[in-house]
């Protein structure tokens, strides 16, 4: 039987289905992130002006290239569902792993809620254009979460193939917009005069501040390694899919900045809800408008879909180790998905999607992501120290170590400062949350965990222990 593996003891065990290829990894990574090009990134222009927006786009791009490189090396070696969570468990220790698991669940569940809110907003806009003011957005928010959760419940292959299709369409929509504007499809010309007439409306601090939302271009690309237990050949597919993903995003992000900054006055762009759709509206071309509307809707759904996938894998892995109640660590015997984790996270996402304002949810998500990137820096150093290159074989070795780690740490510190400018209270509240949760785990929850069983990789003993 293919869906059951047997162990030496002869007991039957369930496992997740190993069915995915590199294209699915790409779809998972880019699918979660591409929505950032359709909404949210443009607040960076509002926080610092047009040039600051472009700087933020590339600086954040550099940050995420470091993330992708570091992550590819570690995850091509620690190939387990839960991604960074399993990395932390093997390299830093249990409490760090618990925190990383929480970062992942929080970042993805919040992002999922933000996406559902955007679906509601988008449909409200369309209904408004058809003369139906005051659409009740709630049923559509609930429906998008329910449908995608059901899809995830039914199996990972269908879920990520669906993601592959809609992500590709959303990506092509950006390229189509870029190309057609270059070929003169726009009724209004591109105008970059604000770069010279109003270069840095906030001075240099504006560039730092804009980095807060510059992260939004790429946030979530690290989610690719959640699929590690479901990929056919993790050591090859994960680095490949992740690197292809970050390249796609760098291209898409730069094109998006160019088109939107050229077509939309920066003061408007800095507060727009759906910048690419607005750019298409300005061109006056109905075909482009429809295409970018579809792109926005698909990018949003793809992101929510990937988030459900990733958050449930993280929750599932933590439960499997009894960091959380073991009841959640179940695999569906037919669909082979972590079905209890998927169902449990649905009402959580609904609470945030229906109850909290969008910018709060987004900030909570960005902050959880940022904490995760900070973790990656010392995680990488410890990984190389405990298991040097000649001690275990890695699927991928990233170049120039420790340069990417140092760059990542500097950029993370800058990003904390950027978030602090304006969202200091949330940052403090969230740090308090993670501190309390850590103490709770260390003093109460950890007693239910089997010590030796947490280390599952067939590696030699780490150096220095």
């Amino acid at each position, binding site marked *: 039987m293919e869906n059951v*593996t047997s*162990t030496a003891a002869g*007991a*039957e*065990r*369930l*496992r*997740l289905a*190993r069915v995915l290829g590199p294209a699915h990894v790409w779809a998972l990574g880019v699918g979660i992130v591409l929505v950032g090009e359709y909404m949210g990134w443009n607040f960076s222009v509002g926080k610092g002006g047009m040039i600051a927006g472009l700087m933020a786009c590339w600086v954040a791009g550099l940050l995420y290239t470091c993330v992708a490189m570091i992550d590819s090396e570690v995850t091509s*070696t620690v*190939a*387990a*569902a*839960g991604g960074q969570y*399993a990395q932390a468990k093997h390299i830093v220790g249990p409490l760090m792993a618990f925190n990383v698991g929480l970062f992942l669940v929080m970042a993805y569940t919040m992002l999922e809620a933000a996406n559902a809110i955007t679906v509601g907003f988008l449909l409200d806009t369309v*209904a408004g254009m*058809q003369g*139906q003011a005051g*659409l*009740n957005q709630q*049923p*559509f928010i*609930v*429906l998008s979460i*329910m*449908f995608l*959760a*059901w899809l995830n*419940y039914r199996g990972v292959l269908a879920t990520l193939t669906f993601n592959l299709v809609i992500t590709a369409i959303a990506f092509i929509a950006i390229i189509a917009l870029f190309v057609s504007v270059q070929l003169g499809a726009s009724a209004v010309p591109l105008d970059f005069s604000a770069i010279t007439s109003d270069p840095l409306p906030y001075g240099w601090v504006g560039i730092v501040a804009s980095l807060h939302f510059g992260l939004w271009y790429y946030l979530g690309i690290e989610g690719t390694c959640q699929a590690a*237990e479901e990929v056919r050949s*993790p*050591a090859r597919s994960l680095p490949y899919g992740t690197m292809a993903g970050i390249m796609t995003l760098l291209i898409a992000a730069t094109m998006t900045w160019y088109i939107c900054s050229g077509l939309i006055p920066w003061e408007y762009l800095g507060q727009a809800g759906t910048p690419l759709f607005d750019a298409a509206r300005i061109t006056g071309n109905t075909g482009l408008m429809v295409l970018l509307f579809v792109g926005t809707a698909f990018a949003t759904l793809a992101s929510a879909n990937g988030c459900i996938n990733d958050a449930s894998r993280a929750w599932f*892995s933590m439960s*499997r*180790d009894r960091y959380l109640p*073991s*009841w959640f*660590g*179940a*695999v*569906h*015997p*037919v669909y082979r998905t972590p*079905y*209890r984790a*998927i*169902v449990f996270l*649905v009402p959580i996402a609904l609470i945030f999607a229906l109850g909290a304002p969008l910018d709060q949810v987004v900030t909570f998500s960005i902050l959880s992501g940022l904490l995760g990137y900070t973790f990656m820096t010392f995680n990488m150093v410890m990984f190389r120290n405990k298991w040097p290159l*000649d*001690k*275990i*074989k*890695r699927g991928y070795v990233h170049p120039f170590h420790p340069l990417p780690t140092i760059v990542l740490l500097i950029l993370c510190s800058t990003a904390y400062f950027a978030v602090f400018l304006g969202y200091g209270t949330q940052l403090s509240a969230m740090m308090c949350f993670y501190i309390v949760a850590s103490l709770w785990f260390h003093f109460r929850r950890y007693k239910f965990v089997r010590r030796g069983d947490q280390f*599952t*990789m*067939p*590696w030699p003993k780490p150096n220095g222990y």
Partner: protein
Amino acid sequence: MWNILEYAAWALSALFGLLMIADLVRIDTTYDNELLISSREGEIEATAERHEI
């Protein structure tokens, strides 16, 4: 038109929710819980990839 869509969305949400819950209950009562939570991290590692030089 949009009013009908709202009701349709509610109905579909309820349908997907019920499908999931019903299946969850069915699986939980059919199979032994010990089997369902028998998945272990790293088992694949033992068979597929050995990190040796």
